[in-house]
């Protein structure tokens, strides 16, 4: 701790911070633009000026940039110094010389950092009479709007896009006061994290294009804490609604997971909630009571009811179905090829050789091995973290030269291309290979063998891999050396290849590291799972979909499918046969092929209209809450199932009246979920006797929004399930982290208000953790090596081994109903190695027939020289590939 003097008062601060960070952490308001807590300082905007004094006798002082000055012990500064104040006001005045008169029509207005800072400095009147510079804008694709006139040249966008996210197609062009931030030509921003520009840019240059279609100001949006449901990472989001329609997703800071950034799938995938394919009422149309009685009577009399759960439904919904049909007739709803590897991951979540890594842990790892994962497509936010991990080395070098880590430009200039080791072992080249120090391509079995070999090279006690090629053996030694030499090594693997052996191999590496590392607590393993609640469902230990098919063959009276499109999981004939076996009831929010076959459809609320708990890939249970009440006739899945259970006599009238009661039931029945009630404060939680409002205190239009329907202003809907209220009334201070959704503080209307909610700048939110780690992510000591080393991969004549290739835009079911995401989804190709193509006599772009046993698909071919011979990659989860049980051997025939 260091003591600094601000306006002659002493304060304790962290000496590793710069003065700006330190002052903001202490709660002072200093205006700034170019500094960003996740990206450090470059001193470009000159806005954060304060006055520094040599010692207590110095009365003159000198103006310095707070963001470029370390908070060294004994530093004396003045924020209120009149000269410093005038300087800051002049800086804003310069920055505003060319600023257009746009606020009323600017989408940033009301959440604009430039507005806030202008007010903060007191610059209120435009004095210049000269003409304003103007620019032409670019079309940047379906996500981002461009309005260059509003730029203040802080360089945050390019620093974020290029340096932080690794994008290439956004840059700064031109010279002097003509600098231009954009692309070389009009066109879609290619980076998968482009949406963060909306929050990174302190002005309205980059704004959310999906929001613009139904524009609403920040103060008018109703929001609730939520969890991204588009992959297993579990980023925290703040979805926002108005007039009963979901309008946008904003990042919700979570120190351990998403930090300040979301991926584009998570940010722009929300539009499925407003899709025309939403199911709004019971089909066929019958009164609610009748349909519930009807389904209940089947359960009461027939007894043989099959329940199909879903990895994209909450724990509560899955548990409710399990209770309704009985644990032995509750199935997980995924096929064996997916559920086996997911079960392996779940096993690791319960008993792991080293602590499970959060996304933040990966950011600070100094050597990373990625085993079998195309991270940018299977766990996008984790890939962004890996990009930061390779910068550890430059941080170390900088530290040796006494350059603080926040001194971004200096650190980068010093480091040049110096990077911490990153090893990528995958079936085909991935986006992260460009920053990797070692890359290896192999079929999943060979990747697993490499993993086993690395483990053995780290710890000779680990099982040896027989028959390893010389090259592989050397590579394994090299990687082992890298990982052993690291201070904080991490291994990332998971379900991306749908190969259980690969997961065991990864666990072996982690175990070998934990056994040999001087400080085993510093070793980390990070996991990936396919969907938002895959981990939670796997922890429920239900049988898989194949078992459900089997059960149906021996007779069933009814099948209840929970939020699961079975045609994405299995071949058409199988699902057809299964659904024909009995009366089918489907609970879902969007029309799909399964709902088309259902006899009864119960309209379920999406994540925005229900609440529940999801377990992410690090075993963290997190709660999401209703952003808006569901429309008339729509219910949360668990409520539908509760109603049916009551009618069928499985529950009594009084049970499960609120979500907390369901959570208590889960905790009582399944010990693995002991901790989930701690994921967020319970519904009874109050501060000063008050609930937490979902609406900002400036929420407008209360007495007019519904006046065209009724002038009587109905009471706001009640929410028995959470400590949140559908109202602007309630506790006005910062709520605890698990309930914090919007960030606002006096004078801070932009997203940067999150500063005021953090324990220190860039640190965790105040008010306790959001989410609860099941088993706390600790390591277990009594784990032994796995020795199920697979045979090496051998190609087969006339056949290819097809592995799944996930895509950030396309592979996930719900986000594909968002027009923006659908526009970014590429046409599906079967990717093959050119040598295989030559052998099979097929050429690029040619349509081929791909035959897996009885299933056949026709697809165009694309050459991918990075694939190992005999292995082909098929995009997963697209309509063209839905229901194909990859990985599997297939025959390719040209047409």
């Amino acid at each position, binding site marked *: 701790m260091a003591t600094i003097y601000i306006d002659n008062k002493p304060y304790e601060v962290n000496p590793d911070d710069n003065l700006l960070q330190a002052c903001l952490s202490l709660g002072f308001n200093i205006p700034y633009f170019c500094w960003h807590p996740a990206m450090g300082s470059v001193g470009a905007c000159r806005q954060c000026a304060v006055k520094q004094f040599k010692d207590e006798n110095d009365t003159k002082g000198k103006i310095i940039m707070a963001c470029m000055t370390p908070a060294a012990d004994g530093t004396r500064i003045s924020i209120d110094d009149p000269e410093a104040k005038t300087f800051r006001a002049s800086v804003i005045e310069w920055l505003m010389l060319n600023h257009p008169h*746009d606020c009323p*029509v600017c989408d940033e207005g009301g959440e604009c950092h430039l507005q806030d800072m202008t007010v903060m400095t007191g610059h209120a009147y435009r004095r210049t009479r000269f003409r304003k510079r103007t620019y032409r804008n670019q079309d940047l694709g379906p996500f981002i709007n461009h*309005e260059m006139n509003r730029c203040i040249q802080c360089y945050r966008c390019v620093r974020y896009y290029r340096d932080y996210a690794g994008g290439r197609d956004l840059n700064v062009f031109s010279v002097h006061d003509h600098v231009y931030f954009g692309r070389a030509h009009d066109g879609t921003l290619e980076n998968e994290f482009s949406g963060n520009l909306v929050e990174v840019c302190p002005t309205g240059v980059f704004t959310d294009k999906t929001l613009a279609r139904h*524009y609403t*100001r920040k103060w008018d949006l109703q929001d609730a804490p939520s969890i991204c449901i588009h992959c297993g990472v579990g980023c925290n989001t703040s979805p926002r609604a108005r007039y009963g329609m979901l309008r946008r997703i904003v990042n919700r800071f979570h120190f351990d997971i998403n930090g300040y950034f979301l991926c584009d799938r998570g940010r722009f995938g929300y539009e499925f909630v407003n899709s025309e394919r939403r199911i709004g009422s019971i089909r066929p149309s019958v009164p609610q009571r009748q349909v519930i009685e009807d389904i209940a009577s089947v359960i009461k009399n027939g007894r043989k009811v099959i329940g199909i759960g879903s990895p994209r439904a909450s724990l509560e919904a899955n548990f409710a179905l399990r209770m309704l049909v009985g644990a032995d007739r509750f199935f997980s709803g995924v096929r064996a090829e997916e559920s086996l590897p997911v079960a392996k991951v779940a096993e690791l979540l319960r008993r792991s050789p080293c602590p499970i890594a959060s996304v933040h842990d990966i950011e600070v790892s100094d050597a990373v091995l990625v085993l079998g994962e195309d991270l940018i497509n299977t766990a996008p936010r984790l890939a962004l973290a890996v990009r930061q991990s390779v910068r550890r080395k430059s941080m170390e070098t900088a530290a040796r030269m006494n350059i603080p880590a926040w001194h971004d430009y200096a650190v980068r200039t010093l480091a040049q291309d110096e990077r911490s080791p990153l090893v990528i072992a995958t079936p085909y080249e991935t986006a992260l290979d460009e920053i990797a120090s070692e890359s290896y391509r192999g079929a999943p079995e060979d990747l697993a063998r490499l993993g086993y070999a690395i483990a053995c090279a780290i710890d000779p006690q680990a099982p040896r891999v027989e028959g390893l090629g010389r090259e592989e053996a050397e590579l394994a030694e090299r990687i082992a050396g890298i990982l052993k030499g690291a201070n904080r090594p991490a291994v990332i693997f998971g379900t991306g290849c749908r190969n259980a052996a690969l997961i065991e191999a990864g666990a072996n590496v982690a175990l070998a590291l934990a056994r040999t590392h001087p400080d085993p607590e510093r070793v980390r393993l990070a996991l990936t799972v396919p969907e938002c609640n895959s981990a939670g469902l796997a922890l429920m230990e239900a049988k898989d979909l194949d078992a459900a098919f089997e059960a149906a063959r021996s007779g069933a009276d009814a099948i209840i499918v929970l939020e699961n499109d079975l045609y994405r999981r299995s071949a058409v004939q199988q699902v057809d046969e299964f659904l024909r076996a009995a009366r089918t009831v489907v609970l879902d929010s969007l029309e799909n092929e399964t709902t088309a076959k259902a006899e009864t459809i119960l309209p379920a609320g999406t994540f925005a209209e229900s609440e529940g708990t999801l377990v992410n890939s690090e075993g963290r249970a997190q709660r999401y809450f209703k952003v808006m009440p569901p429309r008339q006739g729509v219910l949360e899945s668990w409520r539908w199932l509760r109603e049916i259970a009551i009618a069928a006599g499985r529950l009594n009238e009084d049970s499960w009246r609120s979500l907390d009661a369901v959570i208590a039931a889960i905790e009582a029945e399944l010990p693995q979920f002991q901790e989930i009630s701690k994921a967020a404060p319970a519904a009874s939680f109050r501060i000063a006797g008050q609930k937490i409002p979902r609406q900002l205190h400036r*929420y407008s239009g209360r007495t*007019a929004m519904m*006046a065209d329907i009724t002038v009587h202003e109905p009471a706001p809907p009640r929410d028995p399930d959470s400590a949140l209220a559908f109202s602007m009334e309630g506790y006005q201070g910062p709520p605890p982290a698990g309930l914090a959704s919007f960030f606002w503080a006096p004078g801070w209307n932009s997203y940067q208000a999150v500063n005021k909610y953090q324990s220190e700048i860039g640190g965790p939110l105040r008010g306790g953790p959001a989410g609860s780690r099941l088993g706390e992510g600790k390591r277990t000591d009594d784990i032994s090596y796995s020795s199920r080393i697979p045979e090496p991969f051998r190609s087969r004549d006339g056949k290819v081994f097809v592995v799944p290739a996930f895509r950030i835009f396309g592979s996930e079911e719900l986000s594909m109903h968002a027009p923006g995401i659908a526009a970014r989804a590429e046409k599906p190709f079967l990717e093959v190695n050119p040598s295989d193509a030559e052998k099979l006599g097929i050429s690029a772009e040619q349509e081929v027939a791909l035959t897996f046993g009885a299933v056949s698909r026709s697809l165009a071919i694309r050459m991918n020289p990075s694939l190992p011979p005999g292995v082909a990659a098929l995009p997963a989860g697209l309509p063209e590939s839905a229901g194909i049980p990859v990985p599997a051997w297939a025959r390719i025939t040209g047409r």
Partner: protein
Amino acid sequence: MFSIFRTLWQVAAHMFQRPITVQYPDEKPYLAPRYRGRIILSRDPDGEERCVACYLCAVACPVDCISLQATQDEYGRRYPEFFRINFSRCIYCGYCEDACPTYAIQLTPDMEMSEYRRENMVYEKEHLLISGEGKYHGYNFYRVAGLSIRGKDKGEAINEDPPVDIHSLLP
């Protein structure tokens, strides 16, 4: 004693003064233009809707009786898709007019607003929009703003230079 006589005197004196009662509604009093009565939405000098759907009036309104939804035309001009004022809630404080950056929303000297049904006090855009500029003449927000709209390209607003040629390296 004295006070009784004084009162009598005053009453008698009033009998010879001019009555100040106005025969409303047959006789209408003069209300200054700044009088805060029924609200209208005005048009700019080009005859286009002035309101740019910025939501500032709505947030300024202390009784929250304004609600609207922004939309934009194919050239990017923002305007309200709907604009509703619930006059049964309005307190005619004029905050909305103060907040409006475009002079679109204006209070007028019409205070004759009474209805038998509250529903009839709910005015939509079609009821609010007048065909002129109202109290404030000449101001045209889109001619000052940097946003391009139909008929006004980048650099064509008041006090603007033509768009920068970003390929030029000249000083």
